[in-house]
């Protein structure tokens, strides 16, 4: 499990760590039943206060992403992928709101913002249903 702590960031360290663990779950790098490093180990590894790591683990336990088993350690919970996806969707929603605000501040209309988003989607994920080979030749001529 690779976790990066950015010092001097506006994102609190506990949130940085929690988000990265959640991301590893969502991406399938951590699967249900995987054991996480102990609080002590991770604190030493990242050079972060043990209480901070403990709070991160406790928070993720409350969110249902992790489970603590007495005397055995901390594990990725059952159904962690679904839960981490849900929390990511929430965060993504916030980021979109932030971007929409920036767009409005720049004087863009809702249509223009939609257009930017569709363009971005196209770039990342080429349309599948539109038989891209045909339309491409049509356009380029």
């Amino acid at each position, binding site marked *: 499990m690779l976790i990066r*702590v950015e*010092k*001097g*960031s*506006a*994102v*609190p*360290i*506990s949130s940085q760590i929690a988000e990265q663990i959640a991301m590893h779950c969502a991406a399938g790098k951590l699967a249900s039943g995987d054991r996480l490093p102990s609080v*002590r180990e991770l*604190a*030493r590894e*990242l*050079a*972060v*206060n*043990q*209480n*901070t790591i403990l*709070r991160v683990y406790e928070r993720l336990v409350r969110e249902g992403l992790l489970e603590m088993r007495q005397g055995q350690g901390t594990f990725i919970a059952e159904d962690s992928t679904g839960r981490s996806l849900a929390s990511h969707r929430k965060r993504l929603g916030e980021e979109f709101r932030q971007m929409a*605000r920036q767009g409005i501040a720049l004087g863009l209309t809702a249509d223009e913002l939609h257009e930017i988003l569709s363009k971005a989607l196209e770039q990342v994920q080429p349309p599948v249903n539109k038989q891209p080979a045909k339309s491409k030749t049509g356009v380029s001529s």
Partner: protein
Amino acid sequence: MIDPAIEFIDVCKRFRKQEVLRDTTFRVERGRTFAFLGRNAAGKTTAISIMMGLLSRDAGSVRVLGLDPATHPVEVRRRVGYLAEDQTMYGWMLCEEILRFMAPFYPTWDHQLALKYAKDFEVPLATKIKHLSKGQNVRLGLVLALAHRPELVILDDPALGLDPIMRKQFNRDLITHLQGEGRTVFYSSHLLYEVEPVADEVAILDAGKIVRHAETEELRRDVKQIVLHREAASQLASETRILDQRPDGADVAVIVENAETVIQKLAQVGVEHRIVDLNLDEIFEAYVAGKRSSPIAATIRVAGPQPCDA
């Protein structure tokens, strides 16, 4: 009830005409890692010297592990591990020799532990102190500060002069050997981003006064920058303490405490605003160098209805 590890109540200290500590009050509970932040010359080292019984205070009360360092300096020093800001040790001694030299000063000195720390911290025992690098020097100081198993460790800017890799290693040692064993750590520094990952709580000292003391993460939640229209900002300024404000066109960016309450209030009244999360450096700057009063009132006309000059 158990005594706090350190307690300062209304402590004052002046050197001739210069007032260094002014009614300084704070409390460090046992088992906590407490970051003592301040700019150079804010009074950090003076406060530490008073804790260690190396300086007398002019007024107020000080307790360290329940003892008054002014009347029990030797006892305090025996129970506290102290790493001075720029400690000079006998350069001609071998590291091994200074360990044996220091041992008799402390009834609780554990020489096996001293050797173990020296090994863990990679201190070359057979080298003369004057030939140590800055990093090795700090780590030797740490071995000397820890070998008598102190309940409380006072570190005066230990990371000063260490490179980033050494600083991370130093923080790791602190986490494993001090926090891991439940000791109280009082860590003075002006490198905020170094302290943030390890500190349970932070206190900001400015011109001899504690201007803020909070849990590290609580401070981040509590202090935020809010960007809003000038008029709304001047309204806000009349009811909320503003730490810093800077104008930005028709808007003003203000830094406030109690951010959650303030934001709720703004939302209730329906004032348009944008919230900016701050890092610890920015929060620190707002407290020690923030612009409290600003020309909001004077320039508010600009933001009003368009002037009707043609």
